[in-house]
């Protein structure tokens, strides 16, 4: 992630809207070439110091006279994040300094350099220290003495997760949205799809959510933190920013974030949607968690056409616990039945699944459970439980759905 110092955004104060910096393929065509140059710089930059690399990055981006310095900072940060700098020289520097200063202390002060006699003395002291520590000349040692200062780090390897210039630009755009969200108090996402990955990201970032179903059938997820209810705080901004890469990989969503900007803490809005094609060159999530699930979906489609099978389309909530069954089978008249497959999983996962079954036991769900995992089902469970060994018995599932849908 970027830091606040690299954030670039424009503000429309009349509509209170924030637009994080975005490099597009049409308007910013020339950046494709510049990004290519940046990648080349780092790929061939082995042996150069951070300061040299950054100076060159700034020079390259100076080809666009409108490029704000912070954009250059941001590129430096992104490229540095994918780089490894020489640790050996860095680690050796403090010990070298300690030796030098201890030796020099005896001849302190090395003062009066304008006085030629004293200058000669100082220079001979330096030379003798260098020789004692195994260097042939003073300037050679001087270079290494502060090798651990950030600007003087030497590039060793560069292995980014992006390979092409387009991917770097896409990475940059996502990073700028994240940086804008550092000031966010509340993020609202409207979506009908991929809710599971979103909620998972929310939980991983230790955030809290409220989920409501809108009249349109879409879900509205409000995301903030525990203390957000007590006062307006942007302390969860960095955590909120962490869900953006996940969201960028999802399909069909709209995001609006409430930000507090500047010294006056003015309220502004940031709006984004999947139509912005943010981070479109990032890899997308796999559609199915397992082969079993994808096979089941195929079988279902070939078996019957009266039911549409939607994946992870319904959300059940009890406070902060959320359960999104694997499938919703929707009949032509709109009536629906939920299905959940419990396949091959670790014991910890199954135990948590068992807790979920208890918590949501009121909900009419058809549970499809692998025979060896039967123990997760509570003994007095009132909804259909279908067992399977290798392949899911699609006919049995279908019968259970038929019975439940009219019940």
């Amino acid at each position, binding site marked *: 992630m970027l830091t606040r110092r690299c954030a670039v955004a424009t503000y429309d104060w009349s509509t209170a809207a924030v637009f994080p910096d975005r490099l597009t393929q049409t308007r910013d065509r020339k950046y494709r070439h510049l990004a290519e140059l940046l990648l080349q710089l780092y790929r061939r930059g082995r042996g150069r110091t951070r300061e040299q690399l950054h100076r060159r990055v700034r020079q390259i981006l100076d080809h666009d006279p409108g490029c704000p310095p912070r954009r250059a900072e941001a590129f430096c940060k992104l490229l540095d994040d994918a780089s490894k700098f020489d640790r050996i020289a860095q680690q050796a520097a403090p010990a070298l300094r300690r030796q030098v200063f201890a030796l*020099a202390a005896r001849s302190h002060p*090395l003062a*009066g350099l*304008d006085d030629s006699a004293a200058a000669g003395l100082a220079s001979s002291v330096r030379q003798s220290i260098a020789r004692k520590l195994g260097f042939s000349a003073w300037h050679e040692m001087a270079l290494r003495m502060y090798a651990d200062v950030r600007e003087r780090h030497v590039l060793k390897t560069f292995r980014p997760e992006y390979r092409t210039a387009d991917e770097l630009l896409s990475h940059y755009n996502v990073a700028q949205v994240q940086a804008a969200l550092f000031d966010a108090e509340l993020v609202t996402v409207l979506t009908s799809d991929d809710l599971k990955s979103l909620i998972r990201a929310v939980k991983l970032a230790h955030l809290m959510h409220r989920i409501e179903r809108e009249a349109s059938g879409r879900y509205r997820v409000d995301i903030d933190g525990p*203390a957000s*209810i007590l006062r307006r705080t942007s302390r969860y901004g960095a955590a909120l920013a962490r869900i953006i890469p996940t969201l960028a990989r999802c399909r069909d969503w709209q995001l609006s974030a409430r930000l507090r900007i500047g010294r006056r803490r003015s309220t502004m809005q940031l709006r984004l949607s999947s139509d912005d094609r943010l981070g479109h060159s990032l890899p997308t999530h796999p559609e199915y968690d397992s082969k079993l699930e994808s096979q089941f979906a195929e079988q279902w489609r070939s078996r019957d056409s009266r039911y549409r099978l939607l994946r992870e389309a319904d959300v059940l909530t009890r406070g902060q616990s959320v359960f999104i069954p694997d499938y919703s089978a929707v009949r032509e008249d709109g009536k629906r039945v939920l299905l959940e497959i419990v396949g091959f999983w670790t014991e910890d996962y199954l135990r948590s699944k068992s807790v979920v079954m208890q918590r949501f036991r009121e909900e009419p769900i058809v549970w499809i459970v692998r025979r060896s995992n039967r123990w997760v089902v509570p003994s007095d469970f009132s909804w259909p439980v279908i067992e399977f060994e290798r392949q899911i018995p699609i006919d049995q599932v279908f019968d259970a759905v038929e019975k439940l849908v009219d019940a």
Partner: protein
Amino acid sequence: MVMDRKDFGCCYSLDFSGGTLLWNSERDDSPPLASDVPWVFDRRVQQWRTDAMYYATLCVAIRSDRRSIGDRVYRWKNVWWHRPQLPAPRKEQQLAVDAWYRAGQRGTIVMPTGTGKTEVALQIMLATKTATLVVVPIRELMHQWHRRIMKSLGIDAGLIGDNLYRLAPICVTTYHSARIHMPSLGNRFGLIVFDECHHLPARHLRDAAVMSAAPLRLGLTATLNDDVDRRMDVEQLIGPVVHESSVQSAKGKTLADYQIVRIPVHFTPQERETYEAFGRIVRRYAAKHSTTSKRFDWKAVCRLSNSDLESRRILQAYHACRDLEHRAVEKLRVLGELFQLHRDEQVIVFVGSNAMAIDVSMRYLVPCLLSHSGKRERRDVLDGFANGTFPALVANRVLDEGIDLPDVKIAVVLGGLASTRQAQQRLGRIVRRSGERRATLYEVVLEDTQDVVRFRRRRRNDAYKKVRRRNL
């Protein structure tokens, strides 16, 4: 009556959740106790929620409430000191400790640097015998506190910050780490000590106090905030000022006598030429804009620099001027003469930028402490300085606050901010009393530059008044 909910099946309970408190009532929807605490009903979890800092108030309310309430907030335990080796407090320190107790074990103690604030805190920790979190502004201070606790109280305290996370009943952390980790640390300490607590009211640091449930709170500072709102904020977050003593009253008694010597220096003709060239660019721009817009200021230039090429160039010129001021050749030369003058004494050099710190270090081959110096190097350098191995020490801001450097009586300021607080804290480094030696602070000031303005501004504080001042 405070009872454990598990044992007695209480119908009401108080929980700690991510730096906040949750009131849970199983029986009815009755509003939570203590009406003066700002509760908010949280629909996300169907419970009442408030900030953890109100825990002390709630404890009082729980005690006087007739219902059985399960308090599941605190997770701290008492601490037993095995081998405390703390010298008896001086009179002034004992007064401060007593005042803190009288104020209900909450409050701020204002004492000048060098009068033993740390000892006061250690005395209080020794007496309260509860799990304690000490919050300090910078990493170096964190390690220093760790050493002090080890030496005086015989406990290897935990450290949170500087890439470390070692939680222990006695723990030291920085303001930034405290802010980040308080949602998980807030209910683990009964006493929280804020060292240099004037930092706390900063908007992004307040959470370090707001999200902590610690009922006992101690603030320590040498320099209270000038701003009334910020003072009020400290009062709300920690407690009122319970004890205050000034620099003037301590000078010559608990503090060493000191003088301030100003040394004017000049740019070389070459430096002056470059400085003037950059200066002209800045002045021309400022003159043009301050006539067209009354609201012209530097902040506007900084803001504009992101989109406007001209502003960017102005800003670059401005920074070039600052850099020249901080790294003037003459300053380096004068420093050499001061080293000569005090060749048998140890000298601390304060500079205005990291680049200058490295310049000084390379020219005179003396150690320098930068903000990114590693933990081990800092300790080595400070130990080496304390035992006399190193004749001098250079620092930009690392040594500004709180670091103990015993027996140093000479400091040279080559550059710095206009802040009176920084000046006062820097002065504090050399005024610890040891024998009858008088301390001297040299201020090397570049004539006819902004350096003079900064020097004048930082003189406007109590510590600089009525002090022997000389010009060389």
